[in-house]
C-alpha cells in the first residue's frame, strides 16, 4: 500500500500517460467537459435562484394576506351571499387565540390600480395607493427609509395625521430639490404631514414602479380621517420562524369565522394569498432545477468516464506484453491493479480539476460582465457554486475514476504471464 504514494509509482504513472500524449489529452477532455457542464449548470441554476429570490429579498416570506369575501353558506339564520368586514377587535382575538404568530397587521387602503387622483399638493395632483398601517408593516414589506422616519406607535396612539411617502410620490408632487419633510399633502381632502420618504427594494417585476407610488399613514388616523370606523380592510399576518403560516392559517380563519357567524366549513368567505406557499413552490422549483443540473451534469460526466474506462482497456490490451514482463519479474497482481487504478484516478482527477478551473474561469468572466450591469431588474445574478459543490464534484471524480479503472484493472490481472509473453 505504501507504494501508492511513493515517487516511483507516480513516475510510472506519468511515464505511462505521457507515452501517448494526444490520446491522453483527448480522453481527459471527456471528463473535463463533463465536470465543466456540471459546474456551469449548477452555477446557472444558482444564478437564476439568486435572481428570482432577489424579489423576496428581506420580505417576510412566512406571511399571508387575508381579506373578506362573501359568505357562501347560510349559517345561524344568516343567508349566503352576505358581505362582512373584519373589525379591529379581530386582530387582538387572532393574536390571543393563535400561537406562534409574529405580526398581525390590520391594513386599510384607499385608491388602487388606475384609481382617480386622490392626493393634492398645491397645484400638483396624483393617484396613489394610500395605506393605513401599523409600524410592523415595514418588517413584512421591507423598505428603505431614505429621509425622515417611518410610522411609530406614538403616531398610532395619538392618531397623528402623518404620512410616509414613496420616492415616486415625491417626484410626482414636489419640485426637484424641494424640502419634503414637514410639508403637507392633502389625501382625499385631509391634510397629512410628510415625515418620511421610503424606497422599496425592487421586486424585479413589472410593479417595481408602482411600489414606489404608495403613501403610508397611521392606521388609526386613517380610520378616523376616512370614516372607516373599526373596519379592517385586510390583514398581513406573519408567523414566527420555525412555524409555517401555511399550517397556522386555518386556525386564523376559524377565529375569524367564529367571530363573524360564518359557517365553519365555508371555504370561500375568507380570501387569502399565502406568500409562504408561493415561496415554497419557488424553492421547490429550484430544488428540482438543482436536481436536474446534477442529473444532466453527472450523465455528461459519465460519458467522459466511460471514455476513460475505454481508453484504459485499450491501454491494458496494448500493454498485455508489458504486464506479462512485469509479472515475470515479480509484479504482484495487486501492484498491477493498483497501477491501472491509479492511472485512471489520476487522469480523472487532473482532467476534472482542469474542468473545474475552466468553469470557474467562465463564471468569473460572466460575473465580471454582470457586475457592470444593473442587476436589480434581472432574473440572473451572481452565478456561482460554493466550495461544497466543488468538493462533491471532486468526490464524484475520485469515485468515478476508481470505477473507470476497475474493469480494466481486472482485465489486466487476468492476463496470465505465460500468455502475455507469448503474444508477439
Amino acid at each position, binding site marked *: 500500500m505504501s*507504494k501508492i504514494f511513493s*515517487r*516511483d509509482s507516480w513516475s510510472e504513472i506519468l*511515464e*505511462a500517460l505521457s*507515452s501517448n500524449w494526444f490520446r491522453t489529452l483527448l480522453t481527459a477532455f471527456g471528463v473535463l467537459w463533463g465536470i465543466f457542464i456540471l459546474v456551469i449548470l449548477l452555477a446557472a441554476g444558482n444564478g437564476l435562484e439568486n435572481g428570482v429570490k432577489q424579489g423576496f429579498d428581506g420580505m417576510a416570506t412566512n406571511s399571508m394576506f387575508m381579506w373578506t369575501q362573501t359568505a357562501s353558506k347560510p349559517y345561524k339564520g344568516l343567508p349566503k351571499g352576505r358581505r362582512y368586514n373584519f373589525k379591529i377587535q379581530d386582530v387582538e382575538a387572532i393574536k390571543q387565540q393563535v400561537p406562534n404568530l409574529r405580526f398581525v397587521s390590520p391594513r386599510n387602503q384607499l385608491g388602487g390600480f388606475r384609481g382617480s387622483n386622490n392626493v393634492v399638493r398645491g397645484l400638483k395632483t396624483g393617484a396613489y395607493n394610500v395605506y393605513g398601517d401599523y409600524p410592523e408593516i415595514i418588517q413584512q414589506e421591507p423598505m428603505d427609509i431614505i429621509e425622515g422616519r417611518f410610522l411609530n406607535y406614538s403616531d398610532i396612539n395619538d392618531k397623528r395625521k402623518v404620512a410616509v411617502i414613496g420616492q415616486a410620490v415625491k417626484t410626482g408632487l414636489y419640485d426637484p430639490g424641494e424640502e419634503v419633510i414637514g410639508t403637507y399633502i392633502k389625501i382625499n381632502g385631509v391634510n397629512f404631514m410628510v415625515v418620511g420618504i421610503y424606497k422599496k427594494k425592487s421586486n424585479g417585476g413589472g410593479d417595481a414602479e408602482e411600489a414606489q407610488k404608495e403613501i403610508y399613514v397611521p392606521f388609526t388616523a386613517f380610520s378616523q380621517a376616512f370614516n372607516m370606523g373599526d373596519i379592517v380592510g385586510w390583514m398581513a399576518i406573519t408567523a414566527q420562524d420555525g412555524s409555517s403560516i401555511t399550517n397556522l392559517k386555518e386556525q386564523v380563519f376559524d377565529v375569524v369565522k367564529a367571530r363573524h357567524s360564518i359557517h365553519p366549513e365555508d371555504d370561500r368567505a375568507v380570501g387569502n394569498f399565502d406568500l409562504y406557499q408561493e415561496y415554497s413552490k419557488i424553492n421547490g422549483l429550484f430544488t428540482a432545477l438543482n436536481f436536474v443540473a446534477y442529473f444532466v451534469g453527472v450523465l455528461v460526466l459519465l460519458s467522459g468516464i466511460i471514455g476513460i474506462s475505454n481508453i484504459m482497456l485499450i491501454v491494458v490490451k496494448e500493454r498485455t*506484453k*508489458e504486464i*506479462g*514482463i*512485469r*509479472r*515475470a*519479474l*515479480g*509484479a*504482484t*497482481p*495487486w*501492484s498491477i491493479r493498483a497501477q491501472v487504478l491509479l492511472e485512471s484516478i489520476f487522469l480523472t482527477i487532473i482532467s476534472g480539476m482542469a474542468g473545474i478551473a475552466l468553469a470557474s474561469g467562465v463564471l468569473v468572466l460572466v460575473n465580471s460582465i454582470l457586475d457592470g450591469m444593473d442587476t436589480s431588474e434581472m432574473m440572473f445574478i451572481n452565478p456561482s457554486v460554493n466550495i461544497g459543490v466543488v468538493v462533491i464534484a471532486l468526490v464524484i471524480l475520485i469515485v468515478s475514476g476508481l470505477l473507470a479503472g476497475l474493469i480494466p484493472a481486472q482485465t489486466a*490481472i487476468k492476463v*496470465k*504471464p*505465460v500468455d502475455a*509473453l507469448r503474444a*508477439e
Partner: protein
Amino acid sequence: MGNNSLHVLKGINFNVAEGELVSIMGSSGSGKSTLLNILGMLDEADEGSYTLDGKVIKNLNERIAAKYRNQFLGFIFQSFNLINYKSALDNVAMPLYYQGVNRNLRTEKAMHYLDKVGLAKWADHLPNELSGGQKQRVAIARALASDPKVLLADEPTGALDTRTSYEVMELIQGINDEGKTILVVTHEEDIAHMTKRIVNLKDGIILDDSKVTQVRAKEAKEKALSHV
C-alpha cells in the same frame, strides 16, 4: 481452450544441481518451452512435483508466485522483452523495484549489473536505441539484478546472428563460471554445446540426458570470424 487436454509433457524426471549450465534441446512441439514455463512458475504442472532450493512449488497463488519469481528466478527471453519506454537502467532496476528496494540502492545495483554486461555507457538509452545483442545483454543484466538462484533462458540467441549469439553465450558462460545455475532452451546444436549438459526432449519425454564437454563461446567466435 476447450475440454480437450493436451499432454505436452509426459513424465519428466530430472535434477539440476547448483552451478550447472544445462541446455534443453528439442524440436518445436517437444515441450521444452512448457517445461521452462513450469520451472519459471509462469505455468503449473497438472501432476508431479517441482522442488526449487528445497521448496516444493505447488498450488501457488499469484501473489506468492510473483514473490518466488522475483526472488529465485531470472528470465531471459528470445525477444528480449524489455519495456520500451524505460531506459536500459530502469529496465534492469525493475525486479529490484518489485522487491521494494529503494531508489538509490536500486540505481546503484542496476548500474553494477549493466557494467557487468558492458553497457554502463548505454544506461540512459531506450531499448529501441540499442542493437539486438545489446538488448539481450540488458535483459541478462535485468535477470541478474535480483540475484536469483536460477537463470532461465528461452532461446536467448534465437533472434541474434551467429556472432552476437556467441557473444551472448560468452556472457552466459561467464555468469555460470561465477557459480550461477542456468537453464537454456535452444534448438541450435552449437549453442547447446556451449553448455555443460544437454537434455534432449522429444514429444514430452526425455530422450537423452548427457554431460558434454563445453565449447567456450569465445573460441567459437574467433573460429567463426576467421572463416569470414
